Structure formats: C-alpha cells, structure tokens
C-alpha cells in the first residue's frame, strides 16, 4: 500500500518521464536529419563515381563509322588486301572502332565496385538510427573518422580530374588523321578550305564536350565532399542538445504525452513554452542552459 505517500509524488513521475520523452524526441529529430544527410551524401557520391566512370569511357571510346563509310571501307579494304581473311579480319571489318581494353576494364570495374560499396555501406550504417537515436548516440561519433576519409577521397577525385582533364583520344586521333590526309592532298583548293573548316567545327565540338564532362565530374565530386563536411558537423553535434533541439523535442513529447488518456499536461505545456521562449531570448539564460545540458550529455555518453 502506498497511501502514506503524498499525492504530489505521482505528479513528478509523468513529469520526469515527459523530460525523458523530450530528450528522446530531440534526438529523434537529429537522427532523422542524419539519415537524410547520409542518404544525400551517398547519392551525390555515387553520382560523382558515375561521372568518373563516364569520363574514362569517353576518353577511349569512338563513335562507330557511319553506315556508308563502313560499307566503303569494307569494299575498298578487301580490294586492297592480300592477307588471309581470318575471324579477326571479319570482326575488324564489322566493328573497326570498337576498343578492347580487357585488363584495365577489369581493374576499373573492381575499383568502381569498391567505391560504390564504401559510400553505400556508410549511409546504411544509420539505417536504424531513427529507432535507436538515443541508445545509439555514442556510436554516431565513431563514424566521423571514416567519413573524413570518404570526404577526402571525393576531394582527391576532383583534384585528379582537374589535373588530368578529359581528352577524347579516339575522337582526337581521328581528327588528326583527317587533317594530315587533307594536308597531303595537293594542290589546295577551295574544297580544302571547306574540309579544314568542317574539321575545325568538329574539333571545337569535341573540345567543348571534354570541358563539359571534366567540369561536371569535378563539380559533382566537390558537391559530394561539401555535403560530407556538413554531415560531419551533424555527426559531431549529435550527442549535444541545444535549446532548439529541446524546443523541437518538447513539441513532440507533448504530443505523445497528450495522447495518453488521463494525463492533463495543458498547463505544463503553457509554462514550458513560456520558459523555452525566455531562454531563447536571453543570452545569459541560453548560455546557462547550454552548460547544464552539456553536463547532462557527459553523463549520458559515459553510460554503457
């Protein structure tokens, strides 16, 4: 029998639990922000990896010959040839501009897979943080050193692309061969001028496309790195609660507690709303509050 205990004692039980709900709700809000941030970081990093992949492919791939040119080559090439017609010859006649790079392709695929896996695994780390936002607080900070590496990688990819901008080598070598052939055809006439002008137009197109893919790759890698830096700040501040977090947590906690039958919290809500406003508006109160919360956090983090 508890009848000898003063009745006010029971008022403090829900009040205490409400405080716990406030802290939980504040952490829940931060957990959601981190989940969204990590997912964005993953998406932007994967997009940067795709850009790198596209850039390296464009450098060593060639546009196929137009059908009429391909047929011309087939007829002229066979008439000029004297060697044995092998399977290789037939493949060469059908797809003369297909680039075969088996060794580097396997290495690239392994590299791209490893990179995608790193960024995807990082984002997946926080998959259940929204359900364990309070109990998992001490784990969140542990991811920061790995995030630092992932950010640095994106910055390094941007730098490497800047130092070695894209050059569509197969397209450029085609242009060079055509220039030499036109130059070897003498005497020069008005047709020569027109041919050179056409080659110039194509070279400028290639140059613009190279610059564009280089710029887009650098921008995407830097965008991912910047997002990563913002995410890092969120991770480092995850276990610290500010008045804004508490204010956010209060509104959630009151909503939760208000849904419990028989628990009248309207007066308490009005009083705490007023208190939060005063703390927010007064610098010295705010500083005092932050110090007090920081002490509570120290105790919380030290708990197993």
């Amino acid at each position, binding site marked *: 029998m508890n009848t000898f205990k003063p009745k006010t004692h029971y008022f403090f*039980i829900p009040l205490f*639990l409400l405080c716990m709900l406030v802290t939980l709700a504040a952490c829940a809000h931060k957990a959601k922000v981190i989940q969204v941030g990590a997912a964005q970081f993953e998406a932007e990093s994967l997009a940067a990896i795709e850009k790198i992949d596209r850039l390296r492919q464009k450098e060593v791939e060639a546009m196929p010959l137009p059908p009429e040119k391909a047929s011309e080559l087939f007829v002229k090439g066979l008439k000029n*040839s004297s060697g044995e017609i092998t399977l290789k010859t037939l493949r060469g006649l059908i797809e003369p501009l297909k680039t075969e790079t088996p060794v*580097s392709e396997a290495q690239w695929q392994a*590299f791209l897979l490893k990179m995608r896996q790193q960024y995807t695994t990082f984002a997946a780390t*926080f998959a*259940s943080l929204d359900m364990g936002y309070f109990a998992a607080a001490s784990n969140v900070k542990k991811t920061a050193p790995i995030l630092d590496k*992932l950010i640095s990688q994106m910055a*390094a990819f941007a730098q490497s692309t800047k130092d070695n901008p894209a050059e569509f080598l197969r397209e450029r070598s085609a242009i060079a061969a055509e220039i030499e052939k036109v130059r070897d055809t003498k005497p020069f006439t008005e047709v020569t001028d027109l041919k050179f002008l056409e080659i110039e137009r194509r070279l400028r197109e290639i140059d613009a496309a190279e610059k564009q893919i280089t710029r887009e790759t650098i921008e995407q890698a830097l965008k991912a790195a910047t997002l990563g830096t913002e995410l890092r700040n969120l991770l480092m501040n995850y276990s610290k609660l500010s008045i804004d977090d508490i204010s956010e947590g209060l509104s959630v906690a009151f909503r939760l507690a208000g849904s419990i039958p028989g628990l009248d919290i309207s007066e308490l809500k009005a009083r705490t709303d007023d208190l939060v406003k005063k703390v927010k508006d007064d610098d010295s109160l705010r500083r005092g509050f932050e110090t007090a919360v920081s002490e509570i956090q120290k105790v919380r983090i030290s708990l197993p």
Partner: protein
Amino acid sequence: MADNDQIVLEDAKEAAFALDKAYRRAILDGDLDRMMQLKPRVDEAYDRYSQARLKLLEKGVLASDSDVAEMRRIRAEIDQAATIQTLIEGAIKFTIFIAKFAG
C-alpha cells in the same frame, strides 16, 4: 615536378594517340592489312592509358576494406541500440500509463 605516375599517364596518352592516328589513317586509306596489324597495338595502348588514369585516381583512396568492416560493425551496434531503445520506450509508455492510476 610531375610524379612518376603522371609521366606514365602522359607517355601512355601520346603512344595511344600516335598509334590510333596511324590506324585511322589506314581506315581512311582503306588499307585493311595495315588496320589488322595496328588494331591489337591500338587496343593495348588504350588499355595501358586507362590503367594509368586509374592508378592516379587510386592514389586518392584512403578508406580500406577494414573501414568497410568497421562501418558494418557500427551499424550492428546501432541496430542493437534500436532494439534496446524500443524496449525502453515501451517501458516508459507503460509506466506513464500505470502512473495515472497510481495518481
């Protein structure tokens, strides 16, 4: 001063470009025999160039397989914490429910 890997990249680029230009010239001339001679060398040169570009990128890679393993370990801890917290939250809500009868 450019490092060794940078020099390798530039050399591989020049070699691939020169061979491919000769190959393209053979195409323009309809010289099938020469095309067949050059094609494997062109492919090999591009293979080397592509490897050189990859090597420069890989220099920027800092995270390792052990970091991936560490991320998975932290995730397991967070998952575990989520289970514990669900139980705690349930207990809090139950206590609030009981407290109103006690009051």
